[in-house]
């Protein structure tokens, strides 16, 4: 099952500490604070250089930048306040972001460091999966991708590793890889992760444009595992793309329905998105009714 490689962090010609490239969209939240620090660091040097050639331009730029920054702050504050009141996905996104950050910042460093250290001496698919899973919690996506891929390469019969590889592939827009991984996870362990592998497969099939397969997978998921806000929203999107507007509208309404108990941040996010879809559907229907 596994081939031990003593004292090496390089497996299969790939540096697992670096991992494959993660799209900018995924890395952006982590880059914003660093970029802000660099802007603060380089602005004075920029002003100084500008001052040497044209002191008035430096002052003018500084004054304009300050005014624009204040205006932008005012506009953003007003937009955020308005959005919080009128646009449900905004508070839902904030809640989800806080929830994810709290999970990430509360994740224990020790098990991951220990697992990586152990991998230097003895490599197993299970150990790579453990590292990938802990890195997923810490949102260290390049590490997740590298270790999940290595885990699957060592042992392709681990459904959890396949499922995790699917999740990271979906996150990094590698849809074909995601589809293969979710399909493998579902085949190895039908109903894996309480049906999440099947649900994600349906989502990926929809994103790849295979609407028939996607709708079949969604129906299979609903039949086997019931439905929830996320599955209803994704199902609605697939139905809408397939041109089945009435069924899509029903799926959106089910996704936007009032919850019986407090939703998790993730589920709440999909409910908020569904509420916006419902508004759009209602408006379209009103417009169509008015034109008749």
């Amino acid at each position: 099952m596994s081939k031990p490689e003593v004292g090496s962090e390089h497996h299969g010609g790939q540096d697992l500490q670096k991992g494959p490239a993660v799209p900018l969209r995924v890395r952006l939240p982590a880059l914003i604070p660093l970029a802000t620090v660099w802007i603060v660091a380089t602005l004075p040097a920029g002003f100084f250089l500008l001052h040497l050639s044209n002191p008035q331009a430096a002052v003018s730029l500084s004054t304009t930048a300050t005014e624009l920054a204040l205006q932008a702050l005012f506009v953003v504050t007003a937009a955020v306040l308005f959005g919080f009141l009128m646009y449900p996905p905004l508070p839902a996104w904030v809640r989800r972001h806080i929830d994810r950050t709290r999970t990430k910042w509360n994740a224990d460093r020790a098990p991951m460091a220990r697992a990586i250290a152990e991998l230097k001496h003895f490599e197993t698919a299970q150990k790579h999966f453990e590292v990938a899973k802990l890195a997923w919690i810490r949102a260290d996506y390049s590490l997740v991708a590298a270790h999940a891929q290595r885990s699957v390469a060592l042992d392709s019969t681990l459904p959890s590793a396949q499922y995790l590889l699917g999740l990271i592939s979906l996150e990094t827009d590698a849809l074909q890889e995601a589809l293969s991984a979710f399909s493998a996870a579902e085949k190895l362990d039908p109903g894996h992760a309480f049906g999440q592998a099947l649900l994600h497969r349906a989502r990926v099939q929809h994103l790849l444009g295979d609407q028939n397969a996607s709708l079949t997978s969604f129906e299979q998921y609903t039949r086997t595992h019931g439905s929830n806000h996320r599955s209803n929203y994704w199902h609605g999107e697939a139905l809408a793309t397939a041109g089945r507007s009435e069924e899509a509208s029903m799926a959106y309404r089910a996704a936007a329905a009032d919850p019986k108990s407090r939703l998790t941040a993730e589920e709440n996010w999909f409910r908020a998105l569904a509420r916006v879809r419902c508004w759009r559907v209602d408006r379209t229907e009103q417009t169509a009714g008015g034109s008749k």
Partner: protein
Amino acid sequence: MKDVLQQADEIPVTLLVTLAYVTLAFLTDPIAPTDTQLHQHGWLLATEVSNGEPWRLLTSAFLHGGWMHLAFNTYAMLSLGPGLERSLGSLRMALLYIVSALGGSIAVCLVNAPWQPVLGGSGALFGMMGAIIALQMRASNSALGFLQYAGARRTIKLVALYLLFGMLIPFISNTAHVGGLIAGFGVTFLFMTGTNSLERWMPRWRIAYVAMLGGLLLHVLQPTTRWDWLARQSLATQDRERSDDLAIAAAMSLTGKSTVTASDLLAVQIEMQTLDKWLKEWNEK
């Protein structure tokens, strides 16, 4: 070299800083020092820092404006210093104090009016509190794991309480407190604790932190967008055309207008005369 560093690491920094507080207090007046005494011994004035007196960025962190100010900061130094010095070592403690003092002073020069004097070790003391939080964060198994301990929560509450006092009491410079806190937290978090292979972001942040401190220090020493510095440069420049450019830039900075008139140029002159009059009074009394 290693021996020298080892010996230097045994110098009691907390004691030396406290002695510096007291010595400077007696060199001025421990009960009620005058503005002139404080000015001569290095209080922080942004306009003078950019006018060839950068040492004020550090001397102001050892100088106090009366016995109550001195007593409060000495008590805080003696409460926080010994434990922190045992954890970090003397050399790092000295570096922490200097960087925190510098952070507080830079923040004051950037935010406060150029003629507003500031003094006291509280910026550096806030940096030490930031360092305690950073050490607790780094010692914990997760970024927020330290909040499980009552001691860590108490430190954060203390910082929040002092910042609240700073907001309510008008003559306390919260700008220096916040600047010191950020600088002390940053230098301890990034440079004074061990790191591991999981923290691949650390080198990027270390470089960015040093660049930010350097950039802001450059702007404090050469504030190319502040009217008083531009006006002084205008007076000191021999080149007539350049001098006029600088005078107009000074007026633009003072008034916030994109085009200036003769009365705006006059306003800069009047402001400069007032500023110079104060400085002269503080120097001569």
